[in-house]
């Protein structure tokens, strides 16, 4: 049997067995869960050859599964992050209820994402897409009835997107007579103009929903923040990348071949930029870390969309590299929040403070992830951001670059808020009992943090596969020689040499740390955070002076006019209006049998009156 079948069988069987194993023993369930994620991941990377295809026929539709360099790149995100998140999830779900339910859907969504990447035909793509949607939906509503409306919002948006995609798929099938992606791509340039425009739009709707693109992003903050954090790291890190994956395919293989494609790309790029700004502004406002990260995810996905939409080689590299980085750092950050929530029971900045000494490893990974998120050298986020800016500037998107820059500068505010809110501030008696999260949770975070650090100086590790992927999509290969020397270069010939920068930063940093530590070492003492200079007053032990309510208020006051209008409100008004209409419509069924009988007569009479028109 082909490895691809084995992978899916393990996923499926593992999901079912894991679900029921909880009835036998909890540890067995954990082990089964890990096995059913890690073994397929191993098999995938070890045994699935790039370019190999398996074909099968189901329900009279010929399906094809296989992998190319481009999807292999995304499978790195999915299975890599998925495996780490799975390890983390074992720690996270310890002692939680409904573990079987969670594990089942976790495995299924990983399977679905793998399936999406393996699909070479539209039907299995759609099937896996929908499985991914509902399994992630089921995890989103894991926390019970208070998240019901959030979950339904997520599902409705996903469904609208997916159904748009379904329309596109069947239209493609109508035109080409085949469901294979390759056939679609071949037939696309010869299609009628309206099809050439509508098919990508409908595909992009589906992908835009998953990639949380404005104005389809309103589900994302709620869904990201209410799913269990062990899953949200996958949700935001990997699942949203499926939207990016599809978007890239549509843009590169279809839209680029028509002259109107430039409009698609401009519009998408701007939507991405606006998404970034909106996400950032709202993230700054949040007092709940989950919400903050959720909005931040929306913003980060905006950058990625912009990069992909610009579509030059550098921009593609930037977008895809940012996608990988986003998976890493947002995965880590959601895990951090999960660990904190697990240890303290809350994820609200106004409640938890001063955990830095209680959870040092968690803090370290959070710190590195935040630095990467903010795009500050020498971590990986900078490489992506740099390439994004350079590609925007060199492709003359000078206003867009300002928008993006504004978003990423404002991102510092929430970056700092995140770190400060949890780890800084006064250490409280209330949280004195808090311990570092168990190793099984800390380890995945640290591994990812390490990756971010390495990628900041040696981005070639990821840029090489990206390059392969781009070549598979038909891009030239103008930057390949750089990765070994860890230089990033734009198309005007300006560059950043990463290695000396890392060494300089490390050298300077270590020198001054040494200076600060060594100088007067004997007379330097550690004092508690209660011992602060607050006009001679001594804060009591149970008194918390940490500044955490209304944290970024000055900034908010400056941007408030822009934030009064929420897209969400319009959607809600629309939904309310619809429901009112439905309520009105169903009053046709009056409940009076005679009325119904009269309807019959009326029906007949109307038919008879319009018979010449109808028949």
């Amino acid at each position: 049997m082909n490895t691809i079948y084995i992978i899916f069988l393990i996923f499926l069987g593992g999901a079912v067995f894991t679900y029921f194993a909880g009835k036998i023993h909890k540890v067995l369930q954990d082990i089964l869960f890990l096995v059913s994620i890690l073994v397929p991941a191993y098999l995938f990377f070890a045994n699935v050859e790039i370019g190999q295809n398996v074909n099968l026929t189901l329900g009279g539709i010929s399906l094809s599964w296989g992998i190319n360099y481009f999807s292999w790149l995304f499978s790195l995100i999915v299975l890599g992050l998925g495996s780490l998140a799975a390890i983390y999830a074992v720690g996270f779900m310890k002692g939680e209820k409904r573990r079987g339910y969670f594990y089942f859907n976790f495995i299924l969504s990983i399977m679905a994402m793998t399936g999406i990447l393996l699909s070479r035909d539209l039907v299995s793509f759609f099937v896996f897409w929908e499985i991914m949607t509902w399994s992630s939906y089921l995890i989103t509503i894991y926390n019970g009835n208070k998240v019901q409306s959030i979950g339904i919002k997520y599902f409705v948006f996903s469904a609208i997107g997916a159904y748009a995609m379904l329309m596109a798929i069947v239209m493609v099938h109508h035109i080409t007579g085949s469901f294979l992606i390759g056939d679609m791509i071949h037939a696309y340039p010869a299609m009628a103009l309206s099809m050439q425009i509508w098919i990508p739009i409908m595909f992009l709707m589906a992908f835009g929903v998953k990639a949380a693109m404005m104005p389809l992003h309103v589900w994302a903050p709620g869904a990201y923040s209410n799913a269990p954090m062990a899953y949200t790291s996958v949700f935001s890190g990997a699942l949203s990348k499926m939207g990016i994956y599809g978007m890239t395919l549509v843009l590169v293989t279809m839209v680029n071949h028509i002259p109107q494609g430039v409009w698609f790309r401009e519009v998408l790029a701007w939507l991405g930029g606006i998404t970034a700004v909106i996400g950032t502004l709202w993230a700054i406002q949040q007092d709940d870390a989950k919400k903050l990260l959720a909005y931040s995810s929306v913003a980060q996905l905006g950058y990625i969309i912009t990069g992909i939409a610009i579509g030059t080689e550098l921009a593609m590299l930037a977008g895809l590299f940012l996608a990988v980085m986003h998976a890493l750092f947002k995965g880590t950050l959601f895990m951090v929040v999960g660990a904190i929530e697990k240890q303290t029971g809350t994820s609200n900045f106004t409640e938890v403070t001063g955990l830095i000494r209680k959870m040092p490893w968690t803090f370290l990974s959070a710190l590195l992830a935040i630095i990467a998120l903010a795009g500050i050298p020498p971590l990986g986020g900078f490489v992506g951001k740099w390439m994004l800016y350079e590609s925007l500037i060199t492709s003359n998107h000078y206003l867009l670059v300002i928008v993006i820059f504004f978003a990423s500068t404002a991102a510092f505010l929430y970056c700092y808020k995140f770190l400060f809110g949890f780890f800084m501030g006064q250490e409280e008696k209330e949280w004195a009992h808090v311990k570092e999260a168990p190793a099984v949770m800390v380890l995945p975070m640290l591994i990812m943090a390490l990756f971010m650090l390495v990628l900041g100086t040696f981005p070639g590790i990821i840029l090489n596969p990206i390059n392969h992927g781009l070549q598979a999509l038909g891009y030239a290969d103008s930057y390949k020689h750089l990765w070994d020397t860890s230089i990033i270069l734009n198309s005007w010939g300006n560059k950043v040499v990463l290695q000396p920068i890392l060494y300089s930063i490390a050298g300077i940093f270590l020198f001054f740390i040494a200076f600060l530590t060594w100088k007067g070492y004997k007379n330097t003492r550690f004092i508690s955070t209660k011992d602060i200079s607050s006009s001679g007053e001594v804060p009591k032990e149970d008194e918390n002076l940490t500044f955490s309510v209304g944290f970024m208020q000055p900034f908010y006051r400056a941007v408030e006019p822009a934030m009064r209008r929420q897209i969400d409100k319009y959607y809600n008004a629309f939904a309310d209006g619809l429901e009112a209409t439905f309520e009105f419509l169903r009053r046709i069924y009056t409940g009076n049998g005679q009325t119904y009988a009269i309807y019959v007569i009326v029906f007949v009479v109307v038919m008879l009156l319009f018979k010449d028109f109808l028949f």
Partner: protein
Amino acid sequence: MEEVLYNVLGAIATFLVAFVVGMTYGGLNRKITARVQNRKGPPFYQNFIDTLKLASKKSAIHHGVMQHFGPAFLMVTSVMSLLIVPVLTHNQWFPNLNFHGDLIFLLYIMVFGPLGMALGAGQTGNPNSAIGITRGLSQMVGYEIPWVLALVALMIQYHTTSIVGLMAVQAQSGTWLMFSSPFAFIAAVMAMLGMFSYSPFDVVIAPAEIASGPASENGGKYLFTMMSSGSVFAFVKLTLYVDLFMGGADNIVILLVKTFALYMIPVLYSLTTVRYRTEQSIRWFWGWPSFFGLLAILQAVIF
């Protein structure tokens, strides 16, 4: 290896020069302020005495490891950006790393320090620090907009993102960019007012209101590091402006003249104004300075 050593020695030399010049400029600022206020004022070397005193404080306290990291991060920013910005053209003693990074890199390394410092200040647990930091970061978002507008205008006009490239442009044409791209210069200078956070943009460290904000728990060696870093950073900023808009400097005298002339803009402006609230300053930066930035981009696109 030898090259590395040479680089390191050069970097140390640059650092010393930057330190001295920055400190002196700080002292001169105090002196000028005093003279304007009809005072005698401290000697111009007063800042040296202050830092020396801070360095010679016998004891120090800290609230955790991040309080060490914060000033160190600040220093990383100052020194790294010093290494990226070409101090003197055609001078073998200041080789630096300026071919290893470009303007975008510089922009990002310049926010590295404030964020690191913010972390250090955050761990002290003093609410005043956090308040100061929120103000500082918000204000940063404000002035980055005109600043980046100006820089993007330069980049797209001259098709280079590197500082050296922009200096080469000026050397070639013989015209300073402040004349050939006046709007960019105006926007950048207005942004510089925010960068120096002198009055009216000094709400960040308002001493009486929030007890000097981020620095409120730092004394002794920590404050020393922060002050030195600030001085070096002031020098870096001035040099960067000189490089970008005034054609750079061949020797140290020209550099000093140009930087001092530039430095007088925020200093003198601060003497005539009173403090803005944070949102007021943000809105100020998004008003005229950004307008000039947009004009600069327009100019860059048209010409």
